[in-house]
């Protein structure tokens, strides 16, 4: 009886030791504790690196600041619109390029070239063209995300097998059905990868643009808080944005699993 209980405890410990999530959480908690310690013991100046507990307090503080709340709304709007524009254009251009070799040979090289160019050097041009407000952030975000989406959509459509093209032709698929019933489902892995990279790219672009020149948004608030030497509030903004990205990522994963249920079925 006693021996059995010990075995169960040992088994539980072994399971915990073998769990990647347990390791990850442990490391994270240790880092936070160490950070808290060096900051509180004055090893580093808490003004420059406030302890995690102070940042948690700052999070509640910034949500009391109407400017900060408005900033999240503005950045969310910029991100949403830039992503939608990039996604629509990315699909509308990526699918034809993926399906047609001639179009691909003609137009994919310049897209790949721009994909590998640091987009930040174009930022001043966007500010000149669209001004300092939200328009330039939306345009620059869409511009940055577009290339990632196109590249992945083209790759995804490239997965379409010759036998499926032949099936569509033999069974007389009209273009609309060819796209909806055959091309897009085949290309879903690439489309999802493109959307996820595009979303992250758009967020990075919008934030950088706000940091560079803006009159609203999260990046703008970061500038305000750093100018006031409020590192705690700055890090609180960073923490909230990171958390939102993590939540978005797991929602995205869930959506992908749902859309690809037939693929999951194939593996069981």
């Amino acid at each position, binding site marked *: 009886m006693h021996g059995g209980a010990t075995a169960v405890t040992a088994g539980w410990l072994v399971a915990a030791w073998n769990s990647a999530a347990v390791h990850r959480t442990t490391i994270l908690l240790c880092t936070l504790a160490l950070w808290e310690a060096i900051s509180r013991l004055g090893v580093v100046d808490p003004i420059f690196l406030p302890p995690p507990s102070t940042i948690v307090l700052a999070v509640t503080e910034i949500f009391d600041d109407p400017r900060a709340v408005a900033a999240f709304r503005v950045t969310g709007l910029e991100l949403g619109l830039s992503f939608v524009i990039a996604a629509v254009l990315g699909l509308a251009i990526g699918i034809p390029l993926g399906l047609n070799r001639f179009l691909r040979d003609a137009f994919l090289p310049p897209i790949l070239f721009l994909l590998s160019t640091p987009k930040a050097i174009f930022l001043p041009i966007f500010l000149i063209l669209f001004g300092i407000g939200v328009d330039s952030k939306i345009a620059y975000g869409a511009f940055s995300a577009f290339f990632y989406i196109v590249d992945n959509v083209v790759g995804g459509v490239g997965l379409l097998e010759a036998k499926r093209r032949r099936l569509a*032709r033999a069974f007389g698929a*009209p273009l609309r059905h060819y796209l909806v019933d055959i091309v897009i489902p085949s290309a879903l892995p690439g489309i999802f990868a493109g959307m996820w990279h595009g979303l992250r790219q758009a967020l990075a672009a919008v934030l950088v643009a706000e940091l560079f020149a803006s009159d609203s948004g999260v990046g703008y608030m970061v500038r305000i808080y750093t100018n006031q030497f409020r590192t705690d509030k700055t890090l609180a903004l960073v923490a909230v944005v990171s958390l939102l990205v993590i939540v978005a990522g797991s929602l995205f994963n869930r959506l992908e699993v749902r859309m690809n249920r037939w693929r999951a*079925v194939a593996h069981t």
Partner: protein
Amino acid sequence: MSQAVIVDKLSVHYTIEQQPEPIVALDEIDLSVKKGELVTIIGPSGCGKSTLLHTIGGLISPTSGSIHIDGTPLLGPDPKRATFVFQEYTLLPWKNLVENVALGLKFAGIDRASRTARAMEQLKLMRLEQYAHMHPDQVSGGMQQRVAVARALAMEPQLILMDEPFGALDEQTRMMIGAEISRIFTLENRSALFVTHSLDEAVFLADRVILLTTRPGRIKEEIIVDEPRPRTRKFLETRRFVDIRSHLFASLDVPAGDREGADT
């Protein structure tokens, strides 16, 4: 019986880049299939069997010659007149079995209720109705190929084109599906051209067996299999079956070393 399809002096040449001489895949093939007739095509690998089928179905344009289905020329793919069953099942894994069977009907613009009803009928005919809502990956290869046959039958075409449809299946499954095909095609009075590399399959299914020569593909011989359909496995043990099979085997004229391979 009237003719379902007439192929007249059909030639197909493949031109290959940087090669002056085209490959003559088919050379002046004359061929016809009567309504309700099941014609099997057999011949050495590379002799142009797939080319013949794909051309008759409108996927390849003939270099010369013509194809008429039910009296009108066929100029491109037209699934209501000639429908394919491919060797690779080519079912769509993201659609369940009824949706796969209904695919051609959907492409033809038929509304969901009627196409589902028609697809279910075909699945019933194949005795697969209880699997209607499963996905292709959840059923066996033999069942997948029967779904591909049902998808073709659902179009109610004048001609069904089958290119080694059961080549990837084991012998037992293949004979079982063969008997099934014999039953359904007879019941529904379907005309079909059926390419196979199995002598047993060729004789068992056919009203007529067409033997092609090595490249360029020409018709070497036609053999009538005068046995009422639908047929059962018993036919495989009859004198007539064995005679026709050995005659075909001799006509295939494969080099001695390759003989074993010819009927597998």
